[in-house]
């Protein structure tokens, strides 16, 4: 067979074919641009020589990064948020995991009702939750502050933990546990050596989710924290007078920390498979 000369398409057809093939890439570029412009803006303005207000560009400086606690109260607010986040995460993850195992592994009266009720806090508007919680705390004569905030955060994190861990349990092949029992592992050892390690990625994911939800929360916190200042509250309050550039530094750091955790997780997973 001799090679036939490749016919050249007219210019218009070539252009439309190029678009046809690359349309999904063009969409992707627009999509990611839309997602990341705010992040890039935040990161960029963390280098602003801002002075009082960080709304207009006034020149490049590294001072904000050298001294992230420079603005008054920013670091104590961050510390409060981290403390509340860790406490809420640990508590919600333990309780939520136990609920997920009960729902995923056992049949009992009211199981489907529990399954439904677990979704309710996720569907309820946060302002309503926050206001009701405040009313409840006051009714019990508990003043708003650190511990009421932790309790409130545990409450709304649990639902997310249950849903995440339950999905992992549901995808677990029951034959793996049967195989462990068949291989002389009693119930306790089966749970420790087979069930728990296999559900662990779900639990870890749920904990990360819980922490970011708690750290990020403003509405419910604002109702229940009283005079305690968390990081989101600090940013909100200072918005009236001008947000210090240090807030951008902390925000960007959180973003990069999350990015590093995700990438590290991917690398560990890939190593495990290899």
């Amino acid at each position: 067979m001799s090679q036939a000369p490749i016919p050249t398409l007219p210019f218009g057809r070539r252009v439309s074919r190029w678009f046809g093939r690359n349309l999904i890439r063009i969409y992707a570029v627009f999509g990611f641009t839309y997602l990341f412009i705010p992040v890039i803006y935040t990161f960029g303005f963390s280098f602003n020589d801002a002075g009082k207000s960080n709304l207009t560009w006034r020149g490049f400086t590294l001072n904000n990064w050298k001294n992230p606690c420079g603005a008054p109260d920013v670091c104590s607010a961050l510390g409060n948020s981290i403390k509340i986040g860790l406490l809420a995460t640990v508590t919600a993850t333990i309780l939520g995991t136990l609920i997920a195992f009960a729902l995923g592994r056992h049949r009992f009266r009211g199981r489907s009702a529990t399954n439904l009720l677990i979704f309710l806090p996720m569907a309820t508007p946060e302002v309503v939750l926050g206001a009701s919680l405040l009313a409840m705390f006051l009714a019990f004569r508990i003043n708003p502050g650190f511990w009421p905030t932790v309790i409130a955060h545990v409450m709304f994190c649990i639902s997310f933990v249950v849903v995440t861990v339950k999905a992992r349990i549901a995808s677990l092949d029951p034959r793996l546990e049967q195989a462990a029992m068949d291989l002389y592992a009693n119930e306790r050892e089966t749970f420790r050596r087979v069930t728990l390690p296999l559900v662990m990625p779900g639990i870890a994911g749920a904990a990360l989710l819980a922490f970011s939800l708690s750290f990020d929360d403003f509405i419910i916190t604002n109702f229940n924290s009283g005079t305690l200042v968390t990081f989101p509250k600090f940013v909100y309050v200072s918005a009236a007078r001008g947000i210090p550039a240090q807030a951008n530094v902390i925000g960007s750091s959180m973003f990069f920390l999350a990015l590093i955790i995700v990438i590290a997780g991917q690398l560990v997973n890939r190593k495990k498979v290899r």
Partner: protein
Amino acid sequence: MADASSSSHGDLILTRLTKTFGDFTAVDDLSLTIPQGSFFALLGPSGCGKTTTLRMIAGLEEPTVGSIFIGETDITTKKPYQRPVNTVFQNYALFPHLSIFENVAFGLRRRGVKDVKEQVEKVLALVELPHFADRKPTQLSGGQQQRIALARAIVNRPALLLLDEPLGALDLKLRRQMQIELKWIQTEVGLTFVHVTHDQEEAMTMADTIAVMNEGKIEQMGSPADLYESPATAFVANFLGQSNLIRGVVSSTDGDSNVITVHGQKISLLKSRNQSQTTSVVVGIRPEKIRIDLPDVPTTGNALAGGIVSDVSFVGVSTQYVVEMPWKQDLMVFEQNDGGTPTLRSGDPVSLSWNVPFTFGLDGSQDVNAGAETDEIE
């Protein structure tokens, strides 16, 4: 390894085992003795109760009624981890988070065995995967995972090894190879294997004894050759290979044979091979036992005349004919492609003949199609 096996030497004895799920009876009053060291197959279509039986032996399902003994030891109510029984699961059920070494060592470690490393290496060599110890199950092919599942079970030297359709997920060629290997390993390690399968060819290749199960009961038990040559029921005749089953009536007796009238023609059936207690009988003959000839060729033994070839398919080693008989029943005939018979074509008139001893007689009250289609499932 003595700890798991020494206390439990002996046969597996199932007595009046019954398992019901609500209204459905999965296993129905099943009694069975499986001798130590044998390769035993439970064969039947899906839903016949074979897997439920296996799960009761493993301890993963509790019998509704009945008992399970290994030798003198009653294991009916023992937990799975208290039984000297190991299982090769249908989809292998290897632990995805553990290396191959830890998968195989799992049972040894739980029992506190000392020389784990040595035993694991030995069994990995036995299944011919000695260099895979550090890998994860997902990095292995289906056939390799199958061997690891087997290694993980036999390393414990159980009194009884249960295999639940262990080759079902493999392709045909690999399945054939693993059948031979499994049989070899069983001989090598000398354990009792109880193998559950719906694949009659797999059961015949490997097992010393086959029990054919249907609707929770055992239809017939015996060596592969016994079951094939002398099926006791229409279900067994159709499920194990193919059979031509023709209704007839015992019309007279001639020495050690019964003379059977089938649709106006007379054939002989040895009395010793007639299981019918009445004059109503189903006469059976395997397709490969039948000679097919043009009507004018003289025949010996039993003969049925008046057939018309309705379909011819060439399958390499043999040619398969479908012959329509005057009473509108299709009979199957397999002829070896050895040049002995001329190739016939659709529409040719033929007569069929076979040696008298190949004929078997079944109770006349059965459905002649029982078990015929079920081996196509899955």
